[in-house]
């Protein structure tokens, strides 16, 4: 719920150049779809040609799931995401921390390596993260093109990150 609220706020000021928007959710997520549809409906009232799609992928990791089983489930999610990412061929991937984003980004990186499609990966760490990064953040710090943090302590610890202040 928190991640979805944050990402929709991030999207709120983006122009219609960022279209069509493809949302990817975890299969077990019950609340985000309604929030997304509501956001997109409002958006369609302002921008007539507004387009979006919604897809679901298997959740790569449950909270506090063990390391070894997480590797297996994440690998499964990556394999599952590959055909989806290939189909969508995104120019830009925007994510903010749920485990769901890691397999999507990794599959996008693989597609880039194979010369099939190069996506810009922008990661915005959650506002909840003041002093430490989430696990997704720790991984994607090295693999994203732009890594945005919302508190100065993180900018100090992670010098390659971008600090814009609070943006959600």
């Amino acid at each position, binding site marked *: *719920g*928190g991640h979805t*609220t944050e990402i929709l*706020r*991030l999207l*709120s*000021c*983006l*122009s219609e*150049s*960022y279209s069509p928007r493809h949302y990817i959710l975890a299969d077990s997520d019950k609340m985000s779809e309604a929030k997304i549809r509501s956001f997109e409906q409002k958006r369609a009232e302002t921008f007539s040609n507004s387009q979006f799609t919604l897809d679901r992928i298997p959740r790569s990791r449950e909270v506090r799931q063990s390391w070894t089983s997480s590797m297996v489930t994440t690998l499964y999610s990556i394999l599952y995401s590959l055909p989806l990412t290939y189909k969508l061929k995104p*120019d*830009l991937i*925007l994510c903010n921390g749920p485990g769901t984003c890691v397999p999507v980004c990794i599959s996008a990186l693989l597609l880039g390596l194979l010369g099939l499609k190069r996506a*810009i990966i*922008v990661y*915005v760490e*959650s*506002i*909840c*993260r*003041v*002093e*430490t990064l*989430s696990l997704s953040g720790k991984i994607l710090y090295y693999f994203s*093109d*732009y890594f*945005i943090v919302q*508190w100065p302590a993180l900018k100090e610890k992670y010098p390659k990150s*971008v600090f*814009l*202040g*609070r*943006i*959600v």
Partner: protein
Amino acid sequence: FRFKDSLAEDLRRADLVISHAGAGSCLETLEEGKPLIVVINEKLMNNHQLELAKQLHRDGHVLYCNCSTLVETLQSMDLSTLKPFPPGQPEKFALFLDKAVGFE
């Protein structure tokens, strides 16, 4: 409450909010401009959850206590010391992103 879709209505009608340290609860309350006391459950200590509550307290936006000191806090609190919580600025993100992807 666990089953309500949204606490927004309750929040709007409240004069004071006492909450756990969950980010959503804290931020929604502060954005509504309501005074907030965050109660930390030391037994459930999820360190990551505390980061935001601690920072908000450091910045003077919330009062802070644990279950055993709640009554004392309620008796001695001075809500006028709480500072207003300015909204986030997604426009800054939009500007940054436009430059990053080449839309200018």
